């Protein structure tokens, strides 16, 4: 089989590369191992961060659907082979061999290749780590979010990076109990808002702990965890946790075998989580016919994987003479600007450093004036507070997010409270605000700023924020405060129903009454209006429906 471009991997990066290249008339073949396109997006029920111009505020599953639809609309130019693995690259013949479903074996001779093979869950050495029930986080997501299978009764999560935090939230949504999250580092590694979401639902995070042992003889029946000191030595008492699933979310490794086989120059870059190829600003590796994009080029967010895919697709089209030089340079510059914004936040510092280690500027670069991995302007203040490090806003920081009392106490409808203390690339709070109260961002990594005089308390931000970090609190009633908070659990509460009110640590501090339930964006994030004792208005951040009957 001959084609202009072979894309290996149909996840966010691969699909964007295919779409971009085909938009310039390239013939594209996509091969993907799994049974549907979209890669890991098909498991992501949470809303994405990033810029609203792209997909911020849209759930991963929806992005997968949109991209797949676009691919299907280009049937004339893009051919898709699912359940198909690219098993080998043979440099002399420039051939990629593929196996479909262990039943068909064929080879592809492409002019160019984009390797977007994604990543593999890392393993962790501990006693019993191979027992049934020790599952990768991706596996747990596949079971529950793609096939609707209950993964277990009680899960212990290992790792508080974005994946561990997100999957914990998803488990709660699926009705599965999460015993806790074990994290080796002294602070969560993922977005702070993701941690806040699960802390307020009562899931503990054990910082500076590791798993020592999975208990059980046939499958997981529990786990032993213990604290570690700065040197990584165990100390203190062992804790036994009852669980039937241990979910590993200790990071991903780029899937890099084909890149090695092709002889691309590879480097081990810890910031990018493994062996990754050297590449130029167009994502071309040191092999002139091979590009890389997405997690295979270094573990990062899906939002940046998509832009890397576009860059690779654009560059392939350019190398095949389908794009003229000046449009190529303009577009490349635009894509890099977007990529830089996504990498501008404080959690992306690692990525910026990692990319710098493997980015080799091409000879054409000097004419392009692109700023690669520009440092974000915002100064990062490292907060050491124990609560803060595990996603709970400490008491002493509450004042800084409290609206001015004089206005607040008389403002019918209430004022917004945003608990978003970490610089991450995200802007839906501003773009959803109809009154301009949430000010425009100079840089999407800036923290939200509020002009309270313009806030109408409409709660559109509450429904839009991917981090579920916006709340509206109305203090104008005499005894009770009304909180409008985001809710994405099952079941939805009914109006008039009494619900448990939880503070930022998930402790039940009051019983509140639901006065209104809205779904402003018709996207399954509901805004629940609940009345609570006034003095608890700045403590209550979640509700739980009490067991019916």
């Amino acid at each position, binding site marked *: 089989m001959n084609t202009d471009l072979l894309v290996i991997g149909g996840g966010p990066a691969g699909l964007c590369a295919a779409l971009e290249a085909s938009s310039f008339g390239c013939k594209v073949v996509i091969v993907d191992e799994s049974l549907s396109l979209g890669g890991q997006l098909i498991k992501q029920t949470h809303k994405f961060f990033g810029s609203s111009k792209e997909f911020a505020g849209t759930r991963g599953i929806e992005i997968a659907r949109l991209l797949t639809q676009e691919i299907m609309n280009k049937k004339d130019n893009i051919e898709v082979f699912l359940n198909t693995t690219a098993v080998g690259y043979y440099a002399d013949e420039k051939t990629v061999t593929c196996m479909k479903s262990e039943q068909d074996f064929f080879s592809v001779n492409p002019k160019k290749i984009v390797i977007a093979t994604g990543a*593999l869950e890392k393993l962790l050495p501990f*006693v019993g780590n191979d027992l049934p029930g020790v599952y990768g986080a991706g596996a747990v997501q596949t079971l529950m979010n793609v096939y609707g299978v209950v993964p277990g009764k009680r899960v212990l999560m290992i790792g508080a990076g974005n994946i561990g935090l997100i999957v914990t939230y998803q488990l709660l949504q699926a009705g599965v109990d999460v015993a806790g999250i074990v994290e080796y580092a002294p602070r969560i590694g993922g977005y702070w808002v993701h941690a806040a979401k699960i802390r307020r639902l009562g899931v503990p995070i054990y910082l500076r702990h590791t798993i020592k042992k999975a208990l059980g003889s046939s499958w997981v029946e529990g786990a032993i965890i213990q604290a570690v000191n700065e040197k990584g030595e165990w100390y203190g008492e062992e804790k036994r946790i009852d669980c039937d699933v241990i979910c590993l979310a200790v990071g991903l490794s780029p899937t890099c075998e084909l890149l*090695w086989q092709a002889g691309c120059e590879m480097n081990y870059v810890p910031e990018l989580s493994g062996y990754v190829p050297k590449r130029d600003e167009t994502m071309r590796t040191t092999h002139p016919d091979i590009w890389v994009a997405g997690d295979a080029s270094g573990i990062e967010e899906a939002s940046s994987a998509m832009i890397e895919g576009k860059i690779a697709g654009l560059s392939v089209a350019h190398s095949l003479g389908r794009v003229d030089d000046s449009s190529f340079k303009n577009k490349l510059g635009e894509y890099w600007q977007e990529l830089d914004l996504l990498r501008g936040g404080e959690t992306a510092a690692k990525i910026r450093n990692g990319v710098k280690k493997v980015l080799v500027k091409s000879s054409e670069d000097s004419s392009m004036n692109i700023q690669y991995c520009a440092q974000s302007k915002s100064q990062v203040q490292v907060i050491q507070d124990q609560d803060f490090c595990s996603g709970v806003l400490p008491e002493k920081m509450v004042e800084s997010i409290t609206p001015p009392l004089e206005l607040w106490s008389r403002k019918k409808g209430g004022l917004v409270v945003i608990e978003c203390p970490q610089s991450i690339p995200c802007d839906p709070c501003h773009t959803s605000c109809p009154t301009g109260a949430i000010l425009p961002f100079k840089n999407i990594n800036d923290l939200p700023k509020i002009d309270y005089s313009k806030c109408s308390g409409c709660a559109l931000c509450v429904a839009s924020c991917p981090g579920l970090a916006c709340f509206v609190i109305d203090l104008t009633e005499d005894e009770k405060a009304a909180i409008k908070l985001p809710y994405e659990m099952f079941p939805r509460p009914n109006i008039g129903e009494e619900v448990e009110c939880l503070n930022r640590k998930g402790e039940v501090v009051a019983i509140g009454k639901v006065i209104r339930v809205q779904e402003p964006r018709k996207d399954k994030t509901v805004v629940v209006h609940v009345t609570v004792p006034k003095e608890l208005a700045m403590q209550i951040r979640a509700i739980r429906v009490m067991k019916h009957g």
Partner: protein
Amino acid sequence: MDEEIIVCRCEEVTLKEIRDAIRSGHTTIGELKRLLRVGMGPCQGRGCREIILREISQITKTPFEKLNPGRFRPPVKPIPMGLLKQKVSQERSD
């Protein structure tokens, strides 16, 4: 405890076996593969390679990025023999 920790799931090699082998001077992935079969099962080292390299790095006090991760050869994943036979006979008849 090391003897109870499986590092290479495919070939069932324990952390203790790996550490012992490295300490007795087998300090490359290539040697460990030949000695213990680590990374030679159906997953081709996708799970264990990094853990083993980290052990080599720690025991030999060599920075991780200086280590050689070994050769990568096709196929990345096992192919049924029958499929290859089919392919070869197909090509011969073409």
